[in-house]
């Protein structure tokens, strides 16, 4: 950053209004596009019900589920993973708009404004995070109710107030992590097609291989990939917060402390890279 002569106080004063303005713009845009609301929450919901019903018979419960009071159904297993998928879709939809913002010219107007470059990242990440937490939270509240209409088995999920707050906070952390990741992928892209390609070959596999869709206990190499995937720690942390009772620490289910640390570090790294990318004035910044 070139502007080091400003006082820290002045910086804080300038960071908040700009961040709030950009974040609220994200919210207004989102609620004006009804199809986005349906896309981000509808598809994961359908996945959950369909895969839950279809894979029910062939699902092999992971080692850590042995101590649960009842055997783990696939739909229960899949539940935290779907919440994370909603967060990921929301993050993708929010950050793909960076490419549109650049093409439509909005972005260069912001880049020419006297705000610290981190505001441009913060505004987007904050907006995307709020949307992701609202939608994933909605799913976590509504999902268990589906058992009353026969679309899901009864879940062994008994969430008290403290657990709900912890889950919301951890969901926020995952949302920051994924929105920042989406941001740094979208920033150098010149077309939305490019982003879709990255989504199919990188982001979706990242979610599939995070212990959200299958435990991956059986295969050695798969277990390694899952272990190296930062998102594994997001899914596992959420799983620990949602299920009732203590779950043991296994190869594919890290401890809560590890989950928190890895998620926080990964979010911070992504955010740092984003700010660095934005603060470089390049020919790419202008349409």
């Amino acid at each position, binding site marked *: 950053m070139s502007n080091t002569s400003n006082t820290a106080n002045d910086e804080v004063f300038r960071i908040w209004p700009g961040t*709030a*303005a950009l974040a609220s*713009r994200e919210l*207004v*845009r989102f609620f004006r596009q009804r199809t986005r609301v349906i896309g981000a929450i509808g598809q994961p919901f359908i996945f959950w019900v369909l895969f839950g019903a279809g894979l029910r018979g062939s699902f092999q419960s992971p080692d850590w589920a042995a101590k649960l009071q009842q055997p783990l159904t696939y739909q229960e297993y899949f539940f935290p993973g779907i919440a994370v998928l909603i967060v990921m879709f929301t993050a993708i939809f929010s950050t793909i708009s960076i490419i549109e913002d650049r093409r439509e*010219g909005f*972005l260069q107007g912001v880049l*020419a404004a006297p705000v610290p470059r981190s505001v441009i990242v913060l505004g987007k990440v904050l907006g995307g995070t709020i949307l992701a937490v609202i939608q994933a939270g909605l799913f976590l509240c509504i999902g268990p109710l589906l058992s009353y209409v026969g679309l899901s088995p009864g879940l062994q999920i008994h969430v008290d107030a403290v657990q709900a707050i912890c889950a919301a906070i951890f969901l926020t952390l995952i949302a920051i992590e994924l929105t920042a990741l989406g941001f740094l992928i979208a920033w150098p892209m010149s077309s939305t097609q490019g982003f879709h390609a990255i989504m199919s070959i990188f982001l979706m596999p990242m979610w599939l291989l995070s212990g959200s869709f299958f435990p991956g206990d059986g295969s050695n190499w798969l277990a390694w990939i899952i272990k190296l995937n930062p998102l594994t720690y997001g899914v596992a942390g959420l799983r620990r917060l949602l299920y009732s009772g203590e779950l043991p620490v296994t190869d594919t289910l890290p401890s809560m402390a590890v989950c928190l640390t890895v998620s926080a570090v990964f979010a911070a790294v992504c955010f740092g890279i984003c700010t660095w990318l934005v603060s*470089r004035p390049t020919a790419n*910044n202008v349409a």
Partner: protein
Amino acid sequence: MPDFILQANGVSHQYGQTQALSDVSLQIRAGCLFGLLGPNGSGKTTLFRLLATLLPLQTGTVSIAGFDLKNQSSQIRRQLGVTFQSPALDNRLTVQENLRCHGRIYGIASGPLKSRIDDLLNQFAIADRRHSIAGELSGGLRRRVELAKGLLHHPTLLLLDEPSTGLDPAARRQFWDAIHDQQHREGTTVVVTTHLMEEAECCEQLLLLDKGKVVCEGSPQELQASLNGDRLTIRLRRTSELRTRLESFLNAESRPVGDRLCFRVNNASGDLQRTMAEFGDEVVSAEVARPTLEDVFLEKTGRVLSDDHEAKS
């Protein structure tokens, strides 16, 4: 000593192997309406982006309002109002939401921002469109919203990139009225890039750019006066057949403009009389005029400024 708000020395810029600007220097007086005139690809948009702090300064020095572009871009951004060629509005937000979002980014507190937005909407006669979605406005209206957006924070220097691209003549006139009004009202310095003659003639000072180099500078009147002689434009019945004969008769080279031939001559009225006497029946129309900025550009570079007046860069 005149008060310069912008001074640039030896500015060069490269995109990869392409030299977009080479050794450009300019000075702009405070309160001036300054034009950067050049054909597409002349480097004027690159210069605009450098001044708007969107591109890194590679070579040379630029100071704006006493701040150094390289090290104090943040302070410079505070002084700048920027209006882009394609309006930088969020098409899904209303006019008011766009202005409010932008004002908050510029750190204007909500009370003063509200009254400032009211003032500007009235100044640009768009108050009735306050709640319209920006994407549904006509090009002219969007351009005016964009201008209002650029002026929210009372910039000392307003940068406009090809401001009347895509505007019809009426909208163009309204837009320029608004700019002149702003310049007189608040003493704002205005820098505008353009490839259009009509826009360049509105400016007080001009810098002509071609292939990234400064061709010449001065007021439109000075530049036009720098050319000797007049411009004689003749339309003939059989232009292609008679062109060479007419050229040797007048002892001057011609330039075709549409179906007419354009000559730069020292004694236009005398030449016109001689032509009428010699070619009489063949002449459909003839016109004598002072050289235009187009002629200035042609004289200095050997190239025409713009073939297509509506071409986008």
